[in-house]
């Protein structure tokens, strides 16, 4: 299988471990991730909060480059994924706006391709059986709270995710690689990522809510499929602990990192040594490294 790959800005910087692990795992699964050449930023929240045309124009340029090469796209970042879904949905159903956008981007986009997130990619496009076949080291004893976040699953009309309130596809992947997914109610609550810089108090509260519950049910770690959630929840964890006088010290993994560990890759090959929360003690305790 060959599929278009839109890393998005954070996978080259703050989310580098997601990028490295996606590439390593995909290769092992026999999938070629074809990076969209010379891609631009999707505009994230600032674009759709500032203009009605800009977000679709920025996304249409990337999607058009992929479409010209006959490619559907997998977008690992939940924010990019959400904005690409929104652009395709609008432009597919509004020929006049599609014409308008094509004039702006100076391309001939037809809104004929699809975009997938990383959970969908592993769960539906690759399939659990193919993942199971590559597992060399089951992540036995690792208790995982699957944190889907908001933009991956909501709104369901756009994302087609399995269930907007209690999704289970990531839990099924976690089970396939031998870890234990926990039942909890914060799966799709927002971590506040978009306000991390401009309104930091919000993310401290939302993060504290999330980690407190995860800790109470005995989770060893969270697992996400979004570089924004991962960055926000790890980088700001010390500030959350200080603000609410608690101690979490809980790593937040990307789903591809855990799959990679089960495939026998070393933590370094997957970028797991680049986390803001030190992952070494947990990996040692669970004999995963």
């Amino acid at each position, binding site marked *: 299988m060959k599929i278009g790959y839109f890393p998005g800005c954070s996978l080259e910087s703050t989310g580098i471990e997601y990028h490295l692990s996606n590439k390593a795992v995909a290769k092992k699964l026999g999938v070629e991730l074809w990076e969209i050449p*010379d891609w631009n930023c999707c505009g994230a*929240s*600032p674009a*759709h909060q*500032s203009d009605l045309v800009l977000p679709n124009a920025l996304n249409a340029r990337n999607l058009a480059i992929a479409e010209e090469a006959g490619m559907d796209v997998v977008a690992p970042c939940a924010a990019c994924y959400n904005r690409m879904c929104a652009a395709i949905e609008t432009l597919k159903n509004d020929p006049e706006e599609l014409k308008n956008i094509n004039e*702006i981007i100076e391309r001939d986009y037809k809104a004929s391709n699809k975009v997938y997130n990383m959970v969908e990619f592993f769960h539906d496009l690759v399939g659990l059986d193919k993942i199971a076949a590559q597992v060399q080291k089951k992540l036995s004893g690792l208790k995982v709270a699957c944190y889907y976040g908001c933009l991956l699953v909501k*709104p369901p009309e756009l994302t087609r995710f399995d269930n907007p309130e209690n999704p289970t596809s990531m839990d099924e992947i976690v089970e396939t690689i031998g870890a234990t997914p926990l039942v909890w109610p914060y799966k799709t609550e927002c971590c506040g990522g978009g*306000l991390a810089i401009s*309104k930091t108090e919000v993310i401290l509260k939302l993060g504290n809510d999330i980690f407190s519950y995860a800790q109470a049910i005995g989770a060893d770690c969270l697992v996400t499929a979004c570089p924004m959630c991962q960055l926000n929840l790890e980088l700001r964890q010390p500030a959350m602990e200080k603000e609410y006088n608690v101690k979490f010290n809980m790593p937040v993994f990307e789903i591809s990192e855990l799959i990679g560990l089960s495939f026998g890759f070393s933590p370094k090959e997957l970028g797991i040594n680049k986390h803001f929360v030190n992952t070494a003690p947990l990996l040692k305790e669970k004999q995963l490294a």
Partner: protein
Amino acid sequence: MEQVALNSVLKSSQALNQEIAEKSHVDVNKCYQCGTCAAGCPVAYLADYSPRQIVRMLQNGLVEDVLKSRMIWLCIGCGNCLSRCPRKIDVPHLNDTLRIVSKEKGFPPAEKSVDVFNDSFLKTVQYTGRLYEAGLTMLYNTRSGNFMSGMDVAPHMMKLGKISPFPHLIKGRGEVSRIFKKIQERKGGK
């Protein structure tokens, strides 16, 4: 909130309400005020009005109060409200539109830091084609007056090699700049 004569407010705000409805494609009159949106909103605890109140105020013609409100700037776009709304009212997109209209009408943003962040973020995309994190931090800190923002976490990020001091310039950055320019021109801006 002071007493208002709704019949006169409804009339005087009709054009503005119409403009918002046309730009957002959201029909606020479909809302029957169940409050599910407010119950699930992660930022309502911090805002002046809940999403339910924003919609009610629009129904009653209190458009200016809405355009000046903090809620439209705090909305993070998580989609809880829309996903759970029995009337499928797209509140996140409504809030996006309200922010845009609020700026067009010249109201000062009720949450300046959010506006400055958005603007700084987009400036780096406009000139480099991608997000330039160090540039965003410099622009945001100087323009927002929060000079030390991010400084507590920056050393950790640098040490792990996660942020570069330099931008990644894409080849098509001229193309991306032109996208911004054309959109601005179509709106009649400079």
